[in-house]
């Protein structure tokens, strides 16, 4: 065998090994987190942990439902605020903005992705929390779901906007021309042809945004208040739900892991397992949707 062919083989195996190593790392992380959590699952009990709302390590109460609710609520709030914004951005960049404007707006949106989480947290603490505190409802501290949702909405904006923009750009040009040639306006073309055609890609972007939102830690700790309680409306007005403090799964781990020992520590790993599971489900569904989109494009 010539030297060149040997080199070729060697490179192939090195690349293969790199791929395998990253898979092993993921599996290893999953495995170790799960192993550390086994004590909690067996001693506290699976349903006790997943369905009880009281988290008080001092008296051996380890229900993480409040944190699951916290994570889901803040993610829901972020999607509610962030998706329309991101979609608007994506449509503007892909369909409306002239190239010069795109060249300014796109990097600016992408820059949002590069700002460290802790800076978002600071912004939330210094600007949003004092503003929200002005809402006159008893028990409103300014810290809570609303502040956290707003911060998170901005944080997931670049993810969703860039994937949605790609999805919109991937819609074949002849759909656009076909619609315009039938006397549809630009806006009708966007809402009736382009967005439906790019739907799967857009949904995949939203789901990846959800994944990002579920995993966000530092900014959430700084603005959500971190009370390990079920979020609830502060008054008879159901909207005050968003003024409630809460704690996320990520925040639960980050806040307590430094001093936790024994079963408490194991329960925090169990929190990590739940988070890991949620993220896997979210990523898998995004993948599945993106794949079904590819299938549709091929059929065309």
């Amino acid at each position, binding site marked *: 065998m010539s030297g060149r062919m040997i080199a070729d083989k060697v490179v192939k195996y090195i690349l293969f090994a790199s791929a395998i190593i990253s898979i092993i790392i993921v599996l290893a992380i999953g495995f170790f987190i799960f192993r550390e959590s086994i004590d909690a699952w067996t001693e506290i009990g699976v349903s006790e942990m997943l369905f009880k709302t009281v988290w008080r390590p001092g008296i051996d109460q380890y229900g993480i439902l409040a944190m699951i609710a916290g994570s889901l609520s803040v993610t829901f709030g972020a999607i509610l605020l962030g998706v329309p914004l991101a979609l608007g951005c994506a449509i503007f960049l892909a369909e409306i903005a002239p190239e010069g404007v795109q060249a300014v707006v796109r990097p600016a949106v992408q820059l949002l992705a590069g700002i460290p989480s802790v800076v978002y947290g600071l912004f939330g603490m210094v600007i949003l929390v004092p503003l929200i505190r002005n809402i006159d409802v008893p028990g409103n501290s300014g810290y809570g779901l609303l502040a956290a949702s707003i911060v998170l909405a901005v944080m997931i904006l670049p993810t969703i906007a860039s994937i949605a923009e790609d999805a919109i750009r991937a819609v074949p040009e002849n759909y656009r021309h076909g619609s315009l*040639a*039938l006397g549809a306006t630009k806006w009708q073309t966007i809402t009736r042809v382009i967005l439906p055609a790019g739907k799967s890609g857009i949904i995949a972007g939203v789901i990846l945004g959800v994944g990002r939102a579920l995993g966000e830690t530092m900014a959430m700790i700084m603005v959500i208040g971190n009370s390990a309680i079920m979020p609830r409306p502060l008054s008879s007005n159901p909207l005050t739900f968003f003024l409630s403090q809460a704690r996320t799964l990520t925040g639960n781990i980050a806040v307590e892991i430094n001093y936790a020992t024994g079963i408490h520590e194991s329960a925090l790993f169990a929190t990590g397992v739940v988070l890991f599971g949620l993220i896997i489900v979210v990523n898998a569904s995004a993948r599945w949707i993106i794949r079904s989109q590819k299938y549709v494009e091929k*059929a065309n």
Partner: protein
Amino acid sequence: MNDTKLETINYSLYYGKFRALKDISIKIPKNKVTALIGPSGCGKSTFLRSFNRMNDLIPGVHTEGSVLIDGEDIFKVDPVALRQNVGMVFQKPNPFPKSIFENIAYGPRVTGLKDHHKLEEIVERSLRSAALWDEVKDNLGKSGLDLSGGQQQRMCIARALAVEPTVILMDEPAASLDPIATLKIEDLIHELSANYTIVIVTHNMQQAGRVADFTAFFYTDESRTGQLVEFDETKKIFTSPRDRRTEDYITGRFG
């Protein structure tokens, strides 16, 4: 002579500084089929797209001279209204990723029609006019993408008819189809010409000879600026062209 439906007067089109069409004056008769022929790059497709202002979508395009429909300057008409009057069929069938029904109903819907019974009527009438009804009437809910290429193209014609235009522009509508599907499209064009003014771009001389009442020959030299060489009844263009270049082209000496 026939009534004139479409007319251009000293019409020129530029992509930025590049002049793609030069001083074109033509009178396209009403309810006839007019073919635009000529070598690749001579601007015939660009010229076709002038009539429904699809060139407006390309940045940097500007025009000189005028384009008239029923004697009215099309640049003074709202392009959305113009395109409802001047339908278009593209080279490659471009059904929307929607059901057959929704594809046909798209045009009427965007003009604000919501009544389902009326939409059903329009869909049936349009599909019948496009000679597709019998093939798809039991499968209107099926995706338009599941049809064969020839059926897709007839659906696109039906989709254009649903808006009730008076003019239909066709940009090489059979270029991606097999001979049998092509024949069906040609029959259809012939039938439609009773009620519609049809302008068709084609590379296929025989096709122009078969379907067109009138033929316009476009030509370009090294400057790549397209110009109209000759326009007359198809018979005359094919049997006794006035210009040497037309004769060379239709006898296959170039292009």
